[in-house]
């Protein structure tokens, strides 16, 4: 009778750390970890020693000091007596403004160009190819500086609008002034405004929220809720009877009606820019630096987006469009209902990284003097306080946070349109 025994227990030998695959991975990881810790410790130790020698040990106290410089393009109120922290916040908002504007414009232009590149009109396809190749193969910094130079050099000075026989006139029925100091557009004003709410009192991160805007958002939200109800009802009727009731006029009324009523109640009117003295007053002033950056970044990124869109459309097999034609769909409906929804799955992941690139490239604002976060925190604040380590660290953290949130958001969207497979 045989006795079942366990296989002889191998005692652990030190050499097994090297020769036995079970332990070797642990060895490698331990070595990697130790090497990394040593490197980090060495770097940090050096930094501490050097900073102590320079007489400025690490501290973030400088953020509370008075900044002492002006930021001309801003969303929130700010003056030179505010702290460096507030200057950084204003800069951050400016970065976000350019990023959002740029992403929207780049998407519109990019999708248009990408679709047009596949046009069966030879000439248009070639023009779009030239556009894409030109913008892709020249550095974005050059485009930004070039856009700035075009705006400054070719547009009329505000002086040119003066006098009885002005050499320049305002565009769009006298409402928009395009000058070499920037573009002045009408601003929305309310004669019976609800006022602002101030948050956080006097602190550096204080911000105001306009009650009018909130009222608009609430009304818009209610309108959309109502529209959904109408659509849902139309769907049930269609499922029961086979006929779909006409809804577009109800939807249109629901979308615009309440907002228009609210606008009348609040006394909405536009504040037009007017020439006073040597410059324009009133209206919203978009500085050249903002416009140049916006324009250059969106056109540059649009070239990349166009290629992505084109590749995405080409990735859909021709069978899909042939099937759509066989069903009797017209070409533009085929594009909208069959091709684009499928192409979207291919398009979105690289699109995310292009939005990220645009946001990161907005840091080149420093080249044209637009005060984004690189210009405030990484520029003037760092020069004034001499806190390079802290400044650069904060700057990197801010960008990292922006990047991670964008990619998180877009990945969530990507997951929601993803093809559900087995």
């Amino acid at each position, binding site marked *: 009778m045989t006795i079942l025994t366990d296989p002889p227990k191998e005692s652990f030998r030190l050499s097994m750390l*090297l020769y036995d695959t079970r332990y070797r991975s642990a060895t490698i*990881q331990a070595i990697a970890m130790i090497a990394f810790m040593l490197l980090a410790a060495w770097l940090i130790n050096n930094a501490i020693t050097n900073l102590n020698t320079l007489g400025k040990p690490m501290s973030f106290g400088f953020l509370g000091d008075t900044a002492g410089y002006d930021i001309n393009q801003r969303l929130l109120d700010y003056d030179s007596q505010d702290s460096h922290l507030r200057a950084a916040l204003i800069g951050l908002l400016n970065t976000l403004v350019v990023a959002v504007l740029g992403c929207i414009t780049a998407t519109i232009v990019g999708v248009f160009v990408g679709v047009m590149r596949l046009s069966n009109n030879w000439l248009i396809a070639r023009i779009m190819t030239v556009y894409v190749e030109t913008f892709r193969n020249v550095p974005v*910094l050059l485009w930004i500086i070039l856009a700035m130079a075009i705006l400054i050099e070719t547009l009329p000075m505000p002086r040119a609008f003066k006098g009885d026989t002005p050499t320049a006139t305002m565009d769009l029925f006298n409402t928009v002034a395009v000058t070499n100091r920037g573009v002045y557009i009408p601003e929305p004003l309310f004669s019976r405004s609800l006022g602002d709410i101030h948050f956080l009192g006097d602190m550096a991160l204080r911000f105001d929220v306009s009650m009018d805007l909130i009222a608009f958002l609430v009304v818009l939200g209610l309108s959309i809720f109502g529209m959904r109800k109408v659509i849902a009802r139309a769907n049930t009727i269609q499922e029961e009877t086979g006929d779909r009731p006409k809804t577009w006029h109800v939807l249109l009324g629901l979308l615009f009606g309440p907002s228009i009523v609210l606008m009348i109640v609040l006394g909405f009117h536009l504040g037009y820019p007017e020439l006073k003295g040597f410059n324009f007053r009133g209206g919203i002033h978009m500085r050249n630096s903002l416009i140049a950056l916006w324009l250059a970044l969106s056109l540059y990124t649009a070239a990349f987006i166009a290629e992505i869109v084109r590749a995405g459309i080409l990735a859909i097999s021709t069978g899909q469009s042939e099937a759509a034609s066989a069903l009797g769909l017209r070409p533009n409906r085929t594009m909208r209902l069959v091709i684009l929804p499928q192409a979207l799955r291919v398009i979105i992941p690289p699109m995310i990284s292009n939005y990220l690139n645009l946001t990161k490239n907005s840091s080149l604002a420093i080249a044209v003097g637009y005060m984004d976060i690189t210009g405030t925190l990484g520029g003037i604040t760092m020069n004034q306080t001499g806190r390079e380590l802290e400044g650069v660290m904060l700057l990197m953290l801010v960008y990292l946070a922006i990047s991670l949130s964008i990619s998180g958001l877009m990945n969530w969207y990507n997951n929601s349109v993803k093809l559900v497979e087995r």
Partner: protein
Amino acid sequence: MSDVSFVRTEMLPEQDPPGSEVGVIGWLRHNLFSSWINGILTVLSLFAIYFVLSGILPWVFQSVWNGGSLTECREIMTATWGQTHGHACWGVINERWLQLLFGFYPSDLYGRPILSLVLLLVAMTPILFNMISRRMNWFLLVLAFFVTAVLMDASIFVWILRAGFAGATLVIGYQLVTLSGADRAEQIAQGAKRLPNPLMFTAIYPFLMPWLMWGGTIWPAICTAFGFVIGYLVLRFGRAYMSELLTMIAAVAAAVIWWLVLSGYVSSALSSVLPIGIEAVQSRQFGGFMLAILLGVVAIGCSLPIGVVLALGRQSDLVVVKFLCVGFIEFIRGVPLITLLFVASLLLNIFMPPGTNFDIILRVMIMMTLFSAAYMAEVIRGGLAALPRGQYEGADSLGLDYWQAQRLIIMPQALKVSIPGIVSTFIGIFKDTTLVSIIGLFDVIGLASAIRADTSWNGIYWELFAFIAFLFFIVCFSMSRYSMYLERKLQTGHR
């Protein structure tokens, strides 16, 4: 009964397609005027093209080439065309193109950057075009040296060099033209000497180039190269005594110790004993398009291997290694390059031992390499992810170890799949070299502002921008076309 059925006894001849379907008219109908909308679009685009070209072409070609300053240019324009608008003043390019290309590099030493560029092309040819023969590559190399020798100042020594290089060029050139591959193979079979592998020069080039560009004694370059030799030797002969893993660690450690501790002493001792060298050039004299190429080439060349390692690390089963790689890649990809350049210009010295002060261009190179390596890693990871599992399993079933499998089976396929991504990363990093103008290096864009600060060229914009855009366009466009060529060449019909 008569037969009334009709049977055709001869075929009608083939007819040409209708005139509206072939030739120019047919092409126009199909490609430009296939529908009403297309026709309108075509006319509109023709107008747009006319509008753009009517502005640009006269500006480019009705221009002034020999004005010494902007005012002079404008005088010539007024004298010739009666107006100063709509005409380019290429005088600025005519006067400053050397500066735009070389920065403040001493003008009598321009031969050195040119030689290193030519040698770069020679070093790259065996990698880029593998059909180039050994003879061809060595012919190019000797030719490059010969041209440089011709350009050098004459002395007895230079005359000897010229004669030597001319002879070598002739010999290899003669072989290249007259000998067919089969004849040469026969000669080699009969015992003739084979030319060394051109990849050898490619391996030497990274150490030759810094010496050519910066000058000084040759010993630091040789000592740096010697570090790799030490690592290789330990790797080669250590296997007999140690395990694979230990050998690898020992090799890396030996090389690092050599570079950090010993090589400095050795090279300074050797330079004092045997000062072989050429005139040294300071880093702040570097600039212009040369700087873009220098930074681009270094970042591109170094980031590919680092990117491969990072991508493998990210795919690895070792949790710690994977975590470190992911952290590094995501961090670098999350911040703009400009912040990394701030680190290079302001902070990198803070993280080094007190008293270290290393060169600004070297610091920028390090940061740009790390930056592009993170992007490269993601591109290669995409290629790795595209490989079917069967490839890994096949490698395992053959009994290959990890590195063999990567080298022989996985990497060639992964790299082939990711060629478009790799090349667009290359193009991106090359364009991003312009950002160094923001931290105060005089690259092309920085020089353009410097030229504008000169009183005689104050107010000139478009010509400089056009020139810079042209330079970058040429390089980037040819890179993208090369990637397309490579994709076609490596096309195997399945992914």
